[in-house]
């Protein structure tokens, strides 16, 4: 079931009274405005940290090459801090990892889907290509931001850049085991994990 904005606003307002499994969004959105909203999402804003790819001495991005050590986040990307009042220029056909200004904590009975805002999309700014947020997640959301247009776009921290839709699960995940989904305040590449199934396929010819 998709939650209405007013339900989300109620959950946010109630977060400090619910010590067991709250929905937290901080900095707190203007819930009075959301209450009167007839939509089904909450807008999220652009944060202050960015991470760009950088030219490095690594010949390619080979995450499978464990023997030769896959390049670390620091060796292939560069962090940037853009304070409030400043802007980041995203050039045509370039890509940056950004982060939401809001730190979000989802209860174990809700999952989220993040999408860009159409007003930005129509200007060539595409946001988020891996939109699912798991129940129990806590952290800022890393956003993949690409300018697919032909003119540079200025983006400022604090701008409403995307939105999150919240869905109620058909039951709850096992809250007693706690959450594995923890984010950070800065955008991160994250690990590309492998599994037994994939490993067998990778090694089938050797």
């Amino acid at each position, binding site marked *: 079931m998709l939650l209405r904005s007013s339900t989300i606003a109620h959950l946010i307002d109630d*977060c400090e009274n619910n010590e067991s499994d709250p929905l937290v969004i901080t900095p707190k959105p203007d819930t009075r405005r959301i209450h009167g909203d007839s939509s089904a999402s909450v807008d999220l804003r652009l944060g202050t940290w960015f991470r760009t790819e950088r030219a490095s001495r690594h010949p390619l991005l080979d995450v499978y090459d464990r023997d030769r050590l896959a390049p670390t986040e620091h060796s292939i990307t560069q962090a940037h801090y853009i304070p409030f009042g400043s802007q980041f220029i995203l050039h045509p056909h370039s890509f940056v990892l950004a982060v939401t200004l809001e730190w979000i904590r989802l209860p174990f009975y809700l999952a989220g889907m993040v999408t860009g805002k159409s007003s930005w999309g129509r200007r060539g700014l595409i946001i988020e290509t891996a939109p699912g947020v798991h129940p129990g997640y806590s*952290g800022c959301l890393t956003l993949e931001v690409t300018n697919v247009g032909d003119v540079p776009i200025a983006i400022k921290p604090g701008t409403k850049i995307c939105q999150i839709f919240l869905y109620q699960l058909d039951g709850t995940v096992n809250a007693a085991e*706690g959450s594995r989904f923890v984010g*950070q305040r800065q955008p991160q590449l994250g690990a590309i994990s492998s599994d037994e199934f994939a490993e067998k396929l990778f090694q089938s010819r050797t």
Partner: protein
Amino acid sequence: MELVQYTNKKLAAVLLVIEALQSGDFPHSHSKPVLDRIETLLQERVNTLGLIQPDTDQAVTKTICKEILHKIFTVYPLLGFIARSMDVRNSFELHGPFLNIVSKALGEDAKLIISSEWDFSPFTYNMPGDLGFSKVVFIGIPVSESGNGLAIPLSGHELGHNIWRAYKFHDKYYRVVEETVVKHIEKVIWDEFQQYFPAVGAPTNLTDMIGQQYWLKSWYWSMSQCEEIFCDFIGLLLFRESYLHAFAYLIAPGLLGSRAEHYPNMLDRVAALRQASDSQGIVFPDSYANLFEDSDTPPDAETRLLLSISDATTKQLIEQLCRDAASLLNDKGLLAHSFAETERIEKSFSMGVPAISPQSLTNIINAAWNFSRNAMPGWSHRYPSVYTNPKRCEQMLNDLIFKSIEVLEINQIQGIE
């Protein structure tokens, strides 16, 4: 003219570095006017050099070149400091909320530059007045701690040096320290003092021009110790219990080798912190003093005697130093602390979220220290994968601290109390 050419070339090289720095990616705007000011100062020297003619007196030329060299020598570390202020390992989120404290303490026009330094001790620059940086607070944090939210209270001590200078506490304590030193020699250790310095003759000669020379070092060291104690009190009163923890974290048990005379002895310093904590209702941890050890005493007896005079003098002024620090911070509205809010933020951290609507930096850092010292209550079952990994625990707490600080800044900008 060879000297002029050399000096001109050096100036041009430094100006080139400044030009490159000016186009740097500064996260905060306060570095720019400082760089502009340094550029102007050096450009003025270029103009002065241009006035030197082949027939100008050699002595005059040398004096001008020396002054320029001195200026380059003075601003050089500052340029490095500004360059390193751009490093993304710095606590950029701290700038706004800490600037708020700096502005309340020193005035709305105060500027703040925080940098990460390759120096283990946090420090601040005491820039000469003629450079025009009297309202710029430079705070250097050891590079390995510059992104550590729990080390933030140490910045309070460094702000203390700027407050000491801005409010002319040196002038205020100049005579007080002198009188206390003389009184101590006269009333407590006269016989011993006379053994080392028989030329003084009688206690009445202690204050004449010759007599002063014998205890001048004690006065000088005590002045410096008083400033350090005052700065500890500024840090302590601004950040309360978290200052004690950050202080111990960084420097306990103390450094090897003979003690630095300009600093109070470690256990005296800790005793002063205890005295101020008790008078201000700050909870002083029971076994805190056990974390520290005094440094070795100086090898020669005369220095030991003079240092004992400094130590005794400083100890006598602790209460007054604490009163001065508390009164100034109180007048500036900087004693912002709430146990209730600290507890509320701890609960947020326990849930794995930043402070919802934090009121002060002090409360955030105190909540973080309490949470850390209590072994992250709640995380063992809420975030077991984080809890079992100390590195991830530290990272997550650090993220919660800095996100809370950012939320505080947002609320300050939005005027949300």
